[in-house]
């Protein structure tokens, strides 16, 4: 794409995208850390995730402020306008991912005080890796303006749903088998639900990227796993 005639405008748009990518990197790190904190019962790591969430909140505010300034001072049009709106929306989704990670980290703190549920650690970690992989992929699609990659993330959301559903059934089985495990299993259930929602945010971001790059919404039916 050709560059803007006004260089400072070009720079502002580039910086905006870089800021969104930076926020994405932090959100990804938060998600990875919270999964590790659950799996390794790592209290310190969980506490660090909780503390770092503030930075994501601040970054969202910063991105919103940049976009407001751009709209007021530059009046972006066409693809520039879509890029600006996309930044606001992606930042919002990333902030929610951060909240989910923080919530998972808090559950990790609780879980560290209960009996370890070793057989379930693997499935939770796998779901976490799958979800974080999607987040990573969609952020790559954003930084490389790759609409096909965004669509690939969007159309593979059912994998997360399937993982989540099987984990849900497994947790139910454990709870029915031994009521003493209900507390820990409920925490894990929420962890799984939060991971599934991070996957949904990745899907949302894919939709935003599609609109940003093509100007049209993704409006074909998306493959879905069965609802629980």
């Amino acid at each position, binding site marked *: 794409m*050709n560059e803007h005639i006004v260089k400072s405008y070009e720079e502002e748009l580039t910086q905006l995208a870089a800021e969104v990518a930076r926020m994405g990197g932090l959100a990804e790190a938060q998600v990875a850390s919270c999964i590790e904190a659950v799996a390794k019962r790592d209290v310190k790591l969980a506490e660090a995730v909780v503390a770092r969430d503030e930075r994501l909140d601040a970054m969202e505010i910063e991105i919103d402020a940049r976009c407001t300034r751009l709209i007021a001072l530059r009046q*972006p*049009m066409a693809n520039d306008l879509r890029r600006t709106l996309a930044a606001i929306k992606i930042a919002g989704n990333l902030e929610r991912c951060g909240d989910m990670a923080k919530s998972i980290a808090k559950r990790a703190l609780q879980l560290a005080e209960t009996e370890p549920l070793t057989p379930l650690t693997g499935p939770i970690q796998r779901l976490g890796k799958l979800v974080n992989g999607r987040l990573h992929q969609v952020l790559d699609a954003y930084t490389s303006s790759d609409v096909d990659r965004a669509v690939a993330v969007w159309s593979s959301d059912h994998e997360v749903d399937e993982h989540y559903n099987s984990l849900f059934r497994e947790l139910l089985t454990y709870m029915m088998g031994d009521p003493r495990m209900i507390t820990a299993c409920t925490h894990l259930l929420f962890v799984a639900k939060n991971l599934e929602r991070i996957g949904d945010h990745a*899907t*949302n971001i894919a939709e935003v990227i599609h609109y940003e790059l093509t100007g*049209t*919404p*993704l409006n074909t*039916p998306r493959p879905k796993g069965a*609802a629980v």
Partner: protein
Amino acid sequence: MNMTLSHVTLGHADAVPEGAPIKVKAAGVNVFYGNKQALFDVSLNMLDRAVTALIGPSGCGKSTFLRCINRMNDTIVGARVEGLIEIDGENVNDRSVDPVLLRSRVGMVFQKPNPFPKSIFDNVAYGPRIHGMTKNKTELADRVEAALKKAGLWAEVSDRLNSPGIGLSGGQQQRLVIARAIAVNPEVILMDEPCSALDPIATARIEELIDELRRQYCIVIVTHSMAQAARVSQRTAFFHLGKLVESGSTEAMFTNPLDPRTQDYITGRSG
């Protein structure tokens, strides 16, 4: 769980329904100034009761195109127009068409307000007088008042109709020449950068006026301000190097233009 919304078309208040009547139709228009070709095979439909904005860099041919509609290019020595321009199906270049009568049907407003060196009243009364449109003084006075009201100027000048038109402010002068144009009941109003010499307040008044007038007329406006084109028009046509690159609903042109040249121009990129 994500909800996948089917495509939602928002009811845009300014949208022109598909199939709205075509007022001015241009087909295969070529314009030459001597040996130099200024327009290449331009075909564009301009709808009635809607504002069509012509945008594009300087020298792209948008003003040349505008001037084809009321045969203003006739007045330029060496200018030659080929192709078809129709108003309500009638070829404006037909021999039977009197250009003077044509220009009463197709009013024009220029970049710099150009009131006659006459009183405010006589500026507006000029057209109806030369075309013999009124029977007596009362009818003429009514017509002047109606035109000034439509142009949103009446309240400001009703107590000084005999003062010279050139004594008004720039914005008022522009509204005066718009009143002069609409006093002869035109069907089409052409505007060539009508706000580029005005301050933001006067510009806003003219834009409000354009929005009022488009409920009654077919308006075609040339503007260098992208924001103005976006604000006042329902349809936008982008010209580049004498060619019509792309035309469509203003909303689509400014959110998702199809041609990369349009995109570069409206987003301020060098193509």
